[in-house]
């Protein structure tokens, strides 16, 4: 099966599909993290339908681009992309967080095709991505490594340990994306633990950085394409300004939707809003 590639406005439709799929998953499971999944939906869409080279029928293809979901709890959006790309069948949508499912509560590389490494404990995925990128450089492989972190996740010190190593080993084949939605589990990041300017922080760690609107698929497409051409020894960081819960009015920027599933009425309304566009 060929990977489905898209660009421009087609990506908007794909993002819509992913949002509906992830909400259906979480609704069926009555468990999961809709807020961060929705804020990351456009980023994941562009990665999986435009930027990354993967083979749905050969998930372990040696030269595939790697993706590490460092913020592992938003896996419903990643599972949705994998299903829509054909890594798994549509019927898995209803199995999220259920016993025996490849769609574990957090990504499990041993159970789920297309997951490059298991994650779920915050701050660790970026180190794994650094390891993958070092291997790619040393083996002179063409693949790139992408990892998605939350802004709240950047409170973990290990993130900065990994960033230092990415600079030391000149990992220009590594792109760190920040889902900068300003919220975390307990509330607003500004109140829980201010991140200050993450773009400046990564730049000071030696990264080539850019800040974009993380819901504008064209901006995402352009930023990812551009960073891919920059073979200058600098690791890349794209700070994506996003809105937690994006696409569902009553979830947007509301802390409680970090880890709560919608009820029947909320689910119906959310699906309608997404279908209607936003």
């Amino acid at each position, binding site marked *: 099966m060929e990977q489905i590639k898209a660009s421009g406005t087609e990506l908007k439709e794909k993002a819509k599909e992913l949002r509906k799929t992830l909400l259906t998953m979480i609704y069926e499971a009555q468990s999961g993290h809709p807020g961060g999944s929705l804020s990351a939906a456009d980023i994941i869409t562009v990665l999986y339908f435009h930027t990354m080279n993967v083979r749905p029928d050969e998930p372990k293809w040696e030269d595939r681009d*790697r993706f*590490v979901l460092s913020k592992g709890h938003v896996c419903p959006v990643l599972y949705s992309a994998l299903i829509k790309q054909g890594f798994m069948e549509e019927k898995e949508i209803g199995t999220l967080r259920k016993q025996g499912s490849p769609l574990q509560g957090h990504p*499990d*590389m*041993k159970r789920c095709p297309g997951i*490059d*490494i*298991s*994650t*779920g*404990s915050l701050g*660790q*995925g*970026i*180190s*794994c*991505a*650094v*390891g*993958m*990128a*070092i*291997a*790619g450089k*040393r*083996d002179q492989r063409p693949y790139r490594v992408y990892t998605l972190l939350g802004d709240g996740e950047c409170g973990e*010190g*290990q993130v900065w*340990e*990994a960033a*230092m*190593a990415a600079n030391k*080993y000149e990992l220009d084949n590594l792109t760190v994306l920040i889902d900068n939605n300003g919220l975390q589990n307990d509330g607003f990041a500004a109140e829980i633990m201010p991140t200050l300017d993450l773009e400046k922080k990564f730049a000071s760690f030696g990264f080539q950085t850019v800040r974009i609107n993380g819901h504008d698929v064209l901006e995402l497409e352009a930023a990812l394409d551009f960073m891919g051409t920059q073979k200058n020894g600098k690791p890349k960081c794209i700070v994506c300004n996003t809105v937690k819960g994006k696409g569902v009015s009553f979830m947007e920027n509301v802390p409680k939707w970090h880890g709560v599933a919608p009820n029947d009425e909320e689910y119906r309304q959310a699906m309608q809003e997404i279908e209607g566009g936003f």
Partner: protein
Amino acid sequence: MEKRATRDALGAEVLRLGKEHEEVYVIDCDVAKSCRTLEFAQTLPQQHINVGISEQNAVGIAAGLATAGKVPFVVTYAVFGSMRACEQLRQEACYPKLNVKLLCSHGGLTPANDGASHQCIEDMGVLRTIPNMTVIMPADYASARKLIAAAYAYPGPVYMRFTRDAVPCIYGEDEEFEIGRARLLRAGEDVTIFANGDTVSIALEAAERLAEEGIQAELYDMHTIKPLDTAAVQAAIEKNGRIITVEDHNILNGLGSAVCEVVAEAGSGKVVRIGVQDRFGESAPYEELLRMNGITAEAICEKARLLLEK
């Protein structure tokens, strides 16, 4: 008896493996000199990474390398490798059963002068509770090299702990060792001693002294505490049920506890545990730290006599 530190075996064996297998990587954490991996760094720079003082990051990078077919050996001190990076080991090495090896010098009380902060009496217990983990402490230089080679060949996470100081050489260079299989060092009918690491030579001395008194002690080098050689423990239970465990580790959750688990489930047999008495060490000579905790040949002999009286 010749003495060599098992950390020297660490350096020599990973270098040999690295020269032979280009997928072998060493990840140092700013203690390459102490852990004897400097020569690896100089000889095989393409297979070497030094992440500086960041053990958690080291384990994550190792996991990433393992997904790309590398066999990474993370090298640091036992106290930092096993506990500073504990959750990273759990999440990124053990849970996905990736081929990550953690090789740690300065196990047990051996960083004696450094004091409690650098001594490590908890590592084997902490790590043996994590599914998919293998936990090993070799007794001497030759067995350390063989067991590192075995760890390389084993597909999955392995923790190995080494001594800072020189310990007596017990084995010949050609002897073979298997992960999970205890090595019978001495046959005897009266009491069975299970020891690991540098306490094996202490137990050996005790067994010789006991023999002079007419007590025949059987001695096993239980280099792997997970997976434990339960057959060896079962055999000891069936033979006479008198068991002594000896380790340079907290008596909680180390070799002694692992043996007790088998004995308790068997419903017969008696175990006396010799080890660190659930207390922190301090800056002192190594032998003195062992003595303070009753980890001596005399203490082993005394426990053997008591077991035989009952």
